[in-house]
């Protein structure tokens, strides 16, 4: 079994539990886009290079299991809005088997 279950709360507050593949080199931002849980053009604008903050999510559990923030991610979050202590750029979170049961909430769109 190469899928994990991830619960994603969209910007309207609705929770979606989806199957995310661990064998497709996908990150969390791409999972959100593949299930169209946020409108195109409002998420993953830079394509996953940690160069915009449109894929910001709040991590609701498993925070300790995620990779450390890179310098680029820290910097980008620094320029973003609505940032909380549990904010991450979802494009910097690769999907792996350890993330089964992960819960995240997509941050609001900033103008």
């Amino acid at each position: 079994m190469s899928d994990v279950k991830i619960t994603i709360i969209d910007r309207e507050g609705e929770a979606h539990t989806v199957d995310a593949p661990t064998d497709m080199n996908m990150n969390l931002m791409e999972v959100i886009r593949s299930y169209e849980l946020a409108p195109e053009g409002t998420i993953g604008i830079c394509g996953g290079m940690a160069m915009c903050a449109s894929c910001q999510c709040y991590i609701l559990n498993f925070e300790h299991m995620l990779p450390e923030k890179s310098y680029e991610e820290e910097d980008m979050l620094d320029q973003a809005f609505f940032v909380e202590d549990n904010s991450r750029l979802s494009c910097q979170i690769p999907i792996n088997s350890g993330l089964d049961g992960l819960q995240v909430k997509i941050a609001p769109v900033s103008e």
Partner: protein
Amino acid sequence: MIKTDILIIGAGPTGLFAVFEAGLLKLKCHLIDALPQPGGQCSEIYPKKPIYDIPGFPEVLAGDLVDNLMEQIKPFEPGFTLGERAETIDKQDDGSFIVTTSKGTKHHAPVVVIAGGLGSFEPRKPPIPSIKDYEDKGVAYIIRDPEVYRDKKVVIAGGGDSALDWSIFLANVASEVSLVHRRKDFRGALDSVEKVEELSKIGKINLITDAEVVDLKGDGELESVVIRHKEKVRGEEIKDTDHFIPLFGLSPKLGPIANWGLEIEKNAIKVNNAYDYQTNIPGIYAIGDVNTYKGKLKLILCGFHEAAIMCQSAYQRINPDKKYVMKYTTVSGVSGFDGSRKEAKREVVKSIN
């Protein structure tokens, strides 16, 4: 009035390559872009990042790809209107279009091609509910004329290069400069960071870190900003100021194009991908990341393909009575509008006696 055959909105890789394909068909192009330099996202967001899926280039830096495209289209002498956003489009009686930019520059062409990617890059606005009420009444997102700030109190927010550089510059112009940043770390160029530190020590810049501007106050005009400190015990402070300049970088917005009567879906323009990437308005095409159709892939290589197809259709539109067949550059060479000529070396037949 700038006149051209094909008016291209967006000078990213797709828009630039369209100039080449049009040039092969002897059509002249002019490009409009809101950014001050060509290249779109490749230049603005990731010039130093490698791209691995440009056919024939195992690896190319985004910035180098733009440089190469500029070199490739040079013989076709494209015109550029840079640093201006395409605002309005007006269809003329003869079916041609006039596109006017944010600075009032007018462009006239029989064919308009939108290659606008994700849209034009606009300053990011902090989510302060009252901010819109004070725009141009003390709040500005771009510094156009630094003299406006002479002997005034200025609050700048942000931690990147532009926040640092403008704080340094305005320290000698304004009566008081405060720089508010969410963290203690700044991500700008090292010498800018050091300069800000130095100016802060001698009291020329009032550095307020671990803090955010959360509200604005004033009767009509901006009078003060509310700064919230991360440290709970310090709470909020109200700081008197004449100007507030949030500098949080740029983000792309579809912008005025969204109001041109084009069919929009998923933040992109719907086109006819069975034929020529024309929009619902005849004479207006959309190519590259800005368009959408079933199976669309937002890849540079797809934009190149769409540019080539679009040019054939545009040629027919501009020259309805002329017959034309697509030619290979290897066979026909490339003849520039500048008089330059590139062609494959001819084989010489010469007998050896």
